[in-house]
């Protein structure tokens, strides 16, 4: 780091102005992508899903809580996990703080996981979170939106995650990446059980009593929705984890698991 080039404010400014052009272009592309997302056609959701929530048995329509848009974070918490995914936890730390703003802009943000409601409630209490979190235990919701997969699909290699078959690090079944094993251990489960659930985000619209699926994103599509990385991307060392990946390490922990430093 100490070998980094330094300059006067004027030299820095010249380089910064160059970069600013590219940054503005990226912002405009982001706006353009948001428009295209809104232009995507919708798919009517005809299936009846029943969820377990803090308020009792609920339909998908109930999860909207009177608003016309529902954003579901597919939180990795399989029925056999002892705790919710630690990586998803760092994403949840972000939306737990701003969900109230979305709620006042006609968007209900809810997490959904396959773990039974009692497990979800205990974990949510431990983490001090307040966002709504429903259990899809006993329905096909997670399978239909491509974030949970069966042992058979895993064995056959027929998992389609992020709109493609195979190719994702979590699709590996023999030589599991260390980061998967570490994440699995932090959830008190094994790697294969851990990767039968995957992270994602799905959007729904409710209009005249009819529910439509409008959008889903997975894998690195979640990167922009993961607050901490946008900040790290500005720090001099960036995400600063390439070496850690080589040695299989994972730097983040649940917010109550860091040792004081």
């Amino acid at each position: 780091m100490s070998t980094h080039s330094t300059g006067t404010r004027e030299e820095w400014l010249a380089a910064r102005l160059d970069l600013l052009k590219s940054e503005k272009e990226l912002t405009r592309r982001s706006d353009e992508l948001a428009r295209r997302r809104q232009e995507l056609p919708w798919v009517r959701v005809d299936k009846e899903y029943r969820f377990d929530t803090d308020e009792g048995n609920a339909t998908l329509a109930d999860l909207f809580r009177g608003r016309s848009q529902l954003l579901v974070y597919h939180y990795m918490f399989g029925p056999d996990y002892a705790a919710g995914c630690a990586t998803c936890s760092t994403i949840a730390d972000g939306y737990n703080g701003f969900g109230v703003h979305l709620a006042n802009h006609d968007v209900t943000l809810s997490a959904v996981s396959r773990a039974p409601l009692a497990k979800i409630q205990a974990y949510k209490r431990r983490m001090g979170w307040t966002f709504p979190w429903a259990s899809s235990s006993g329905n096909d919701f997670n399978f239909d939106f491509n974030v949970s997969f069966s042992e058979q699909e895993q064995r056959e290699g027929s998992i389609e995650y992020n709109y493609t078959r195979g190719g994702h690090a979590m699709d590996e079944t023999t030589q599991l990446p260390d980061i998967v094993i570490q994440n699995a251990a932090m959830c008190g489960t094994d790697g294969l059980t851990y990767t039968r659930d995957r992270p994602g985000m799905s959007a729904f619209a409710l209009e005249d009593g009819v529910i439509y699926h409008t959008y889903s994103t997975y894998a690195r599509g979640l990167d922009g929705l993961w607050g901490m990385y946008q900040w790290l991307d500005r720090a001099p060392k960036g995400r600063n984890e390439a070496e850690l990946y080589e040695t299989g390490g994972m730097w983040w922990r649940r917010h109550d698991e860091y040792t004081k430093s």
Partner: protein
Amino acid sequence: MTKTDLNKHKVVTPDEWLEARKKLLIQEKEFTQLRDKLSRQRRELPWVKVEKEYVFEGPKGKETLADLFEGRSQLVIYHFMFAPEWEEGCPSCSFWADNFNSIVIHLNHRDVTFGAISRAPIAKLNAFKKRMGWTFKWVSSGNNDFNYDYHVSFPAGVPKEGLEYNYGKLQIDSPDLPGVSVFYKDGIGNIFHTYSAYSRGIDIFNTAYNYLDVVPKGRDEDNFEFSMEWLQYHDRYDR
């Protein structure tokens, strides 16, 4: 709560949707790659040595810019708009703070110290922070030039035209504007300014807006006089 009717939208079969979604996915992946590339270019910017001594008022007394690093080598500052004469911090910056408050602990474990800096006196910052239930470090630059040097505060009594913000000359009607600045401290205590972003350059730090960018109505602010008209302090929304 704002409630705009969704336009009658095109509805298709799952297969047709999938085809359209996969096309969009290609563009989304390009965007992610472009963002990674920009992050690399950002880190290639030269650095500027900070020669000035800044002393801030913190919750426990005076602190220098070096102190704010708290033993880590990277410091990210959110320039929170809170002018000395204001009774509350800016509502938009409060929205940004609701986004970053809970992720500071994770940044700390990647050698990044995070703090907010405003010109309002420390007593006002402490009181507002307590009301909002935030835990991030927040210090006052009320007695130094920090905010002016990093182009987020503007002196009274000079022509409003031609003040520098976001690397351009603008007519500025607010005493403070938002921004993010990044600093690096080397092993022998030299401090360098590495990066600053303003205006929509800090859009990406507001994760909530990125969430709105994936819902059917998007940001849904076109019918307002100003974009964030719908926004309130998190403790002021109707239940």
